[in-house]
């Protein structure tokens, strides 16, 4: 029958602190440092993006939207890569740890992709006059969002842990190939219908603008790591709680059987 996935005991980063009876959370010394770093970086990004860097000659102030849009896109793609790699690892190593990583990364990827779509639309309105255009990037992102929703739906099927992990892994390992195929095909398709007014202007940015953009991507990456660690730990604990409840239920049944 089905066997449990091997429990490779690596719960997360950070050294274990002293255990006491007080309130606990998913934090650890490492994540606190990282969290502070993310906050500071975000503050710097806001100053750079909203105040210090100049408005673009072509796009005006709306270029400042790119300082959130592009980092969010970058983080989303990073999360998707992690999900795919994790899914392959689940199938290959039969590892529960990787299953939790993949699931957490996928949830983050969904959030970030949704934000990509929203910020993309908010940028599109002043730039093109409409909220949505079927250009290559927005279309690909929309399909990606749907693929991720499919992954999350599989994760929510209430079956035993092993089958859920395997099913999710099969969907997850196809994420990156799907993304590549969709991107290539949509780009190619839209390039056949060149509408000059709709071409996503990649503005010629340099100097402080470019630095801000790159800084934004770095900040988003740190943020992703921080969120991933916490989300992973939540998933880990949820799984432990489930295991405990199962053990308790079995113990209760055993006691009943003995008693009767």
């Amino acid at each position, binding site marked *: 029958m089905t066997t449990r996935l091997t429990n490779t005991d690596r*719960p*997360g*980063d*950070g*050294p*274990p*602190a002293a*255990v*006491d*009876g007080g*309130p*606990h*959370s*998913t*934090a*650890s010394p490492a994540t606190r440092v990282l969290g502070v770093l993310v906050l500071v970086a975000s503050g710097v990004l*806001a100053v750079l*993006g*909203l105040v210090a860097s100049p408005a673009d000659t072509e796009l*005006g*102030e*709306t270029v*400042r*939207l790119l300082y*959130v*849009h592009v980092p*969010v896109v970058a983080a989303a793609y990073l999360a998707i890569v992690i999900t795919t790699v994790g899914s392959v690892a689940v199938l290959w190593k039969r590892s529960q740890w990787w299953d939790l990583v993949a699931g957490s990364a996928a949830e983050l990827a969904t*959030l970030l992709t*949704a*934000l990509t779509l*929203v*910020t993309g639309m*908010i*940028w599109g*309105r*002043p730039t093109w006059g409409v909220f949505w255009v079927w250009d290559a990037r927005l279309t690909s992102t929309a399909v990606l969002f749907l693929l991720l929703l499919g992954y999350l739906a599989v994760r929510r099927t209430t079956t035993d842990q092993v089958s859920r992990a395997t099913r999710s892994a099969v969907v997850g390992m196809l994420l990156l190939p799907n993304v590549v195929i969709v991107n290539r095909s949509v780009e190619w398709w839209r390039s056949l219908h060149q509408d000059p007014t709709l071409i996503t202007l990649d503005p010629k940015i340099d100097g402080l603008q470019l630095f801000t953009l790159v800084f934004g991507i770095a900040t988003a990456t740190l*943020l992703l790591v921080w*969120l991933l660690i*916490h*989300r992973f*730990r*939540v998933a880990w*604990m*949820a799984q*432990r*709680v489930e295991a*405990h409840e199962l053990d308790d239920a079995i113990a209760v049944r055993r006691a009943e059987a003995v008693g009767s």
Partner: protein
Amino acid sequence: MSQWGYVAAGWLVVVVAVVGYATAVLRRGRALSRRLPPEERRWL
């Protein structure tokens, strides 16, 4: 809406979504850890 309006909307959406999600995750972490016996809170 002026250009600054859109910029503000974009930044606001991202900040609210990220902070909201982070809060939800951290809260759930606390709630779960309360349900676990002390020896299981390994990294804490």
